[in-house]
């Protein structure tokens, strides 16, 4: 079977080799089953094609497993990409990160109350109490804001001889009253840590 030019694709019996190729590759029924059964040219071509497609199918069955490192490499490159191209942060967002505000929504606008304002109110609320003192320089309380809700962490010093439980309960009550009364925010929690005792040598 010569392969020169278009005539090469025609068998000696006049049938087109191209037809037989698709018959074998796609597993189609023969167009002329009677002729194929008796034609030596067709049978020789079909034998050659069955052999070749047997190899193609063997190649298709060959097991190929991708290297596992592909997964970690892809994820690492995504992380690098995320780090290399920071998204543009709006000025609003930058400011709100520097100064955190509690928000009071009203029908006619929003009131923003800086967390430092809440911390100052906490200081005032504690200062007037007997047997309780603040640690460090004012404001010593730290305030976490979440919309109109606040959580307050308050380090305290307690006078020697005063019940820690009673003193911290009084401080907590005073803080909640003052913050909620003056700002309208809701206090979720006042977490007190007793850090110091004072007045021991005087007592």
């Amino acid at each position, binding site marked *: 079977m010569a392969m020169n030019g278009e005539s090469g694709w025609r068998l000696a019996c006049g049938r087109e080799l*191209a037809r037989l190729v698709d018959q074998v*590759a796609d597993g189609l029924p023969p167009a002329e089953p009677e002729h194929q059964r008796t034609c030596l040219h067709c049978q020789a071509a079909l034998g050659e*094609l069955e052999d070749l497609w047997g190899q*193609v199918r063997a*190649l298709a069955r060959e097991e*190929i497993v991708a*290297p596992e490192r592909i*997964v970690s490499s*892809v*994820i690492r490159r995504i992380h690098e990409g995320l780090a290399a191209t920071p998204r543009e942060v709006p000025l609003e967002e930058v400011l709100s990160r520097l100064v955190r505000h509690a928000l009071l929504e009203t029908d006619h606008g929003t009131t923003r109350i800086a967390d430092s304002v809440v911390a100052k109110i906490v200081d005032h609320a504690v200062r007037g109490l007997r047997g309780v003192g603040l640690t460090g320089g004012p404001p010593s309380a730290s305030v976490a804001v979440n919309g109109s809700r606040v959580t307050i962490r308050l380090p305290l010093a307690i006078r020697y001889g005063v019940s820690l439980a009673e003193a911290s309960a009084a401080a907590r009550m005073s803080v909640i009253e003052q913050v909620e009364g003056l700002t309208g925010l809701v206090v979720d929690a006042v977490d007190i840590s007793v850090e110091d005792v004072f007045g021991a040598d005087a007592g």
Partner: protein
Amino acid sequence: MVLKTDDIHLVSAAQRGDLIAFEALVGRYRTPAYRVALRILGDPTDAEDVTQDSFLQAWQALPTLRARRAFSTWLYRIVTNRCLNAIRSRRATEILPNEIEDETRRPNHVTEARRRLETLRRAITRLTPEQRAPFVLRELEGLSYEEIADVLETTVPAIKGRLHRARLALLEAMREWR
């Protein structure tokens, strides 16, 4: 590549930026993606590069994927296009030596069957890129004509024509190297 039900959940989670979900998808689809790339390109290193780049492209383009069910076809399309681009840029920069003659001249260390399979593998990588992609997707990956037309963004008759020419070209090549 049939998309399982939980794959659809992974795809939608990844679309929302869930990197853990995407990592699971890469784990599941790394082998089909790599296999297509290796069979089109014929080189493991190139195939690995293309596979990685394809998944990165998929991560970036995921939010634009409307039909989550079509994820596998979509991924095949990304991989195939990247392979074809890689072939084009490779052709421009280097001329591959004719390894097939070297292979057949080698002493009979490998079995005849293996040698013929290797010859076939190389013959496939000598098909034109236009013929090679449909040939690999149909004969080696077992996709339907409709799926291949979808992956290569063309019509079924166009795919049938390209595939037909690919099969004849392969037959001719195998006869020459016999």
